[in-house]
């Protein structure tokens, strides 16, 4: 071997060279490369030497340098070439079966890829941050016993300082607050989401800054960073850096200078914003008290751990540190106890799919749904593979002579298996190619149909993944037929005896499995559809047809909540008088909350017996209950111009009356000691003001919230209390309604941007994720029906082919087409019935789990299974009859003559 002096080139590269290179060329080639390597080493450019060597080794990998004797000229490679040739011929010869197989596999793959892309998108949330493993979001869970739990992933403002100065393990702490603010000056003011972010926000998260001051973009309080999309929106092609934008911070508009532009935030990010200003601006928005408060929550607090630090060490001592800092700050009667102020941390990448931790600013997905969709994608793929398996195994009879011949000529079982597997792999790779292209083309349609927003990102390594999936599919689909065919007994084949085409039970089992998945998917889709319809058609207890709502504004100078609410109502009155002029606008009303959200404010107090009580509060004008046609159980509604109502009257919903234990609610009071002067004047029938996922909760309705505010001990976030105005439009064109609103709004509030929402859309939006899931499964169902029908089509064809003579004889004896149909359908009917019977318990079990997500749900009815059975039976019989008709039309002479 070589005498190694100084540095030798990388061993693995040399080994590779030795492996592929023709030994006759090897020595001098190696020597030449060595010499070049040495030349760089002598110049003291060691890494250049190494990489040049590796590069040259790869560049030398040419046909002319390859070994000609062993590795590439053995029987394995020769047979592979031959096998592929045979595979192409076989596929080409039987075009009907091949196209059924190809189509089935293609559809299966397309479905698998589409669902897979969706699942991948859900799983890849927040994965693009380089330091993702060290970023955590803190949460705060206050627990005062007796169900007095306040659990938030938005945390006090002072947490930022607390984490930074008390925990050496923390490298950085940043906070993030979303606000809605008017942006711009003069006429074109837009309502935008503006975020308050800590100055080192961009050092923790990987939102690349692409223009302007990329080092310290939020140095000044009046600095503004915007996304690329917003740079275009506001400045077009002009250079945005250094431009100013006015943003209304309190009641005045401040100018902000754009210091940097960041790349648009990817879809798979929990944190989504287009405008960020320094968190310092919070000083103008929040009072000094907010900054020192322990119970006030609004920012999300993210910490970046130092490398190798452990999060548990922080969460273990976080509460003690907080309690230590708190001193004698108290909740209720005494000082804070240990266990009452729990601080915890959630990894950044955990946020999107963890529904156990309350929502922050970002919406989260249900991990269950992601899992179910992944499972369905795989199931559909499997039934596509089963198609191939059953068809090829069934067809194997045709090829028994070929197998016999090969065996006589010395083929061993392994070679035969390899040959048949290459056939299925060729087909699978074709299907993969077409399926991938189809997926790519179908994505827009798929998004439109199902309301998802998936897109196709291709990176070079994906090609390997697709290739791998293709081969795996080929292996899965082809292994059973390969085993069956290769297992034929040579002597039997050549003697001309009949061959058993594999264990019939196995094939029947596969067909049953295929039917089972299909029937299961049909039932699932139907049940989900029923539940969605049930939700949409359920009488919610109020009328929301063609109701439009618009958020009013309060005078921003006012600090006290009750004053702001009053000012909102006053503004609403101005708009109301204008809208009243239009005959097509009726039922104008105002209220602090609108339907279609789960964010109605939650209040709590300790009642006379000391029990902790929670309820939700709705502040309305006199028209509200009538506008929505909410029915009264007893007592009366609020009256216009009734001073008493405006001051102190209270209406409860039925649940609240029961919850507070009021036997004769009308005329009595709420059971708390501190409430201001008030009186209950009526009880409404229960109505579903929040989504049907949850039960109806106690609700208190007032015109004046002050007496209630006096008696409560806790308030839990939720939607803004500033009132919204609603009206019903009775004209023919809903677009007209928004036009009127826009016109009158701009005449009334020239400085505010107008907004509107349709209540029915908001209500629908609450079930969006379920509806999307339903649609996704619907797509998978349709595709699986198609795949299963294709399989059935192929199978009946096989059966008929093997019974050509039998059918001919029967026809000669006078059999009618319908009796022939019975003959053919009998076998499949049994399998189908077994599949249907098996599918029932599986469906009931899984769907029951899904339905448990809803407080109001349908019961799974037996009738539904009849429907899905009927669908599958009809589809199956249609497919079978197609071939039967063809088979019975053949003149028996034709089929019997050929011997």
């Amino acid at each position, binding site marked *: *071997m*070589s*005498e*190694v002096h100084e540095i*030798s080139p990388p061993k693995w590269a040399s080994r590779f060279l030795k492996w592929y290179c023709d030994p006759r*060329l090897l*020595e*001098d*080639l*190696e*020597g*030449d*490369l*060595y*010499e*070049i390597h*040495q030349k760089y080493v002598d110049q003291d450019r060691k890494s250049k030497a190494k990489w040049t060597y590796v590069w*040259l080794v790869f*560049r*030398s990998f*040419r046909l*002319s*340098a390859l070994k000609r004797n062993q590795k590439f000229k053995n029987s394995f490679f020769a047979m592979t070439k031959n096998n592929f040739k045979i595979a192409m011929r076989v596929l080409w010869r039987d075009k009907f079966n091949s196209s059924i197989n190809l189509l089935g596999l293609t559809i299966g793959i397309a479905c698998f890829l589409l669902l897979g892309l969706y699942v991948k998108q859900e799983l890849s949330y927040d994965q693009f941050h380089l330091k993702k493993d060290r970023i955590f979001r803190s949460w705060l869970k206050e627990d005062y016993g007796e169900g007095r739990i306040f659990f938030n992933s938005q945390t006090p403002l002072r947490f930022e300082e607390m984490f930074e100065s008390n925990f050496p393990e923390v490298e950085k702490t940043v906070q993030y607050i979303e606000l809605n603010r008017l942006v711009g000056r003069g006429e074109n003011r837009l309502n935008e989401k503006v975020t308050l972010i800590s100055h080192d926000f961009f050092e923790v998260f990987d939102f690349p800054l692409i223009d302007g001051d990329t080092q310290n973009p939020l140095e000044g309080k009046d600095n503004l960073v915007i996304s690329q999309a917003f740079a275009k929106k506001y400045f077009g092609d002009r250079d945005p850096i250094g431009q100013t934008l006015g943003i209304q911070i309190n009641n005045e508009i401040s100018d902000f200078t754009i210091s940097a532009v960041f790349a648009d935030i990817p879809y798979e990010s929990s944190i989504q914003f287009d405008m960020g200003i320094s968190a310092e601006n919070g000083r103008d928005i929040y009072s000094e008290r907010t900054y020192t408060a322990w119970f006030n929550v609004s920012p999300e607090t993210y910490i970046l751990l130092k490398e190798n630090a452990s999060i548990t060490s922080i969460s273990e001592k976080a509460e003690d540190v907080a309690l230590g800092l708190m001193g004698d700050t108290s909740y209720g009667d005494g000082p804070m106890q240990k266990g009452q102020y729990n601080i915890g941390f959630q990894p950044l990448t955990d946020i999107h799919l963890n529904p156990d931790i309350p929502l922050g600013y970002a919406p989260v997905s249900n991990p269950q749904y992601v899992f179910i969709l992944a499972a369905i994608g795989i199931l559909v793929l499997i039934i596509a593979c089963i198609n191939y398996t059953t068809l090829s195994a069934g067809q194997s009879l045709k090829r028994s002579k070929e197998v016999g011949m090969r065996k006589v000529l010395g083929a061993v079982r392994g070679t035969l298996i390899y040959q048949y597997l290459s056939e299925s792999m060729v087909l699978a790779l074709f299907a993969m190619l077409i399926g991938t292209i189809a997926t790519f083309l179908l994505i827009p349609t798929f998004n439109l149909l199902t309301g998802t927003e998936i897109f196709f990102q291709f990176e070079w390594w994906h090609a390997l993944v697709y290739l791998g999936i293709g081969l795996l599919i080929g292996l899965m689909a082809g292994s059973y037929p390969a085993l069956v065919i290769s297992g034929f007994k040579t002597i039997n084949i050549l003697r001309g005896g009949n061959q058993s085409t594999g264990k019939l039970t196995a094939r029947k089992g596969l067909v049953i499995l295929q039917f089972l998945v299909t029937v299961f998917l049909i039932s699932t889709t139907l049940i989900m559809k029923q539940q969605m319809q049930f939700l949409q058609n359920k009488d919610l207890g109020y009328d929301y047809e063609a109701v439009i709502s618009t958020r009013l504004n309060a005078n921003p100078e006012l600090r006290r909540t009750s004053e702001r609410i009053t000012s909102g109502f006053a503004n609403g009155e101005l708009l109301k008088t204008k809208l009243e002029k239009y005959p097509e606008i009726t039922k104008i009303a105002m209220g602090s909350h609108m339907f279609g959200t789960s964010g109605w404010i939650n209040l709590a107090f300790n009642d006379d017996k000391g029990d902790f009580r929670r309820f939700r509060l709705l502040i309305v004008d006199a028209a509200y209950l009538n506008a929505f046609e909410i029915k009264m159980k007893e007592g009366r509604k609020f009256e216009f111009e009734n001073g008493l109502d405006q001051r102190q009257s209270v209406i409860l919903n039925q649940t609240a009356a029961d919850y507070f234990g009021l036997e004769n609610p009308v005329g009595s009071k709420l059971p708390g000691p501190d409430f201001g002067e008030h009186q209950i004047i009526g009880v409404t029938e229960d109505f579903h003001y929040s989504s049907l996922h949850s039960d109806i909760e106690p609700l208190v309705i007032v015109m004046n919230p002050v007496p209630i505010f006096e008696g409560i001990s806790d308030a839990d976030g939720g939607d803004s209390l500033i009132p919204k105005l609603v009206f019903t439009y009775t004209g023919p064109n809903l677009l007209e309604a928004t036009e009127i609103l826009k016109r009158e709004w701009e005449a009334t509030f020239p400085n505010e941007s107008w907004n509107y929402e349709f209540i029915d859309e908001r209500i629908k939006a609450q079930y969006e994720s379920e509806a999307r899931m339903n649609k996704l499964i619907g797509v998978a169902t349709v595709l699986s029906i198609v795949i299963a029908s294709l399989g059935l089509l192929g199978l009946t064809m096989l059966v008929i082919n093997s019974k050509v003579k039998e059918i001919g004889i029967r026809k000669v004896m006078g059999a009618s087409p319908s009796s022939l149909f019975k003959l053919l359908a009998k076998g499949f009917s049994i399998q189908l019935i077994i599949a249907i019977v098996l599918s029932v318990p599986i469906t009931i079990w899984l769907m029951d789990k899904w339905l448990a997500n809803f407080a109001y749900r349908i019961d799974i009815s037996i009738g539904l299974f009849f429907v899905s059975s009927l669908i599958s039976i009809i589809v199956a019989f249609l497919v079978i009859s197609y071939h039967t008709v063809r088979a019975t039309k053949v003149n028996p002479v034709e089929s019997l003559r050929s011997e």
Partner: protein
Amino acid sequence: MRGEHIGELEELVLLTVGSLYKEAYAVAILDEILENTSRKMDVTAIHSVLRRLEKKGFVTSEMGGATNERGGRRKRFFSLTQAGRRVIEDTMELRLTLYNKLPKLAFVSV
């Protein structure tokens, strides 16, 4: 035989093999070409051209003597064959013929 015509790079390598006489192995050829034409090339390209030329019968090769350099690997020295010599001459002749026609044609057209 298909090798009556040779490409530009092949010609260049062939000429260099001839001019280096007894010292023509791949790395030396590479350096020589770099020196004369300042053309930066990959040694693998030289290898592949040399193999092609050998197959066409324009060069032959033999291994050099044992050495302690190059990690102990011997060099493969190339030399021109008769056919190689002839193809160079043919090419040169062809060029010369064409070249000699050039000024006349140019005069006529001006």
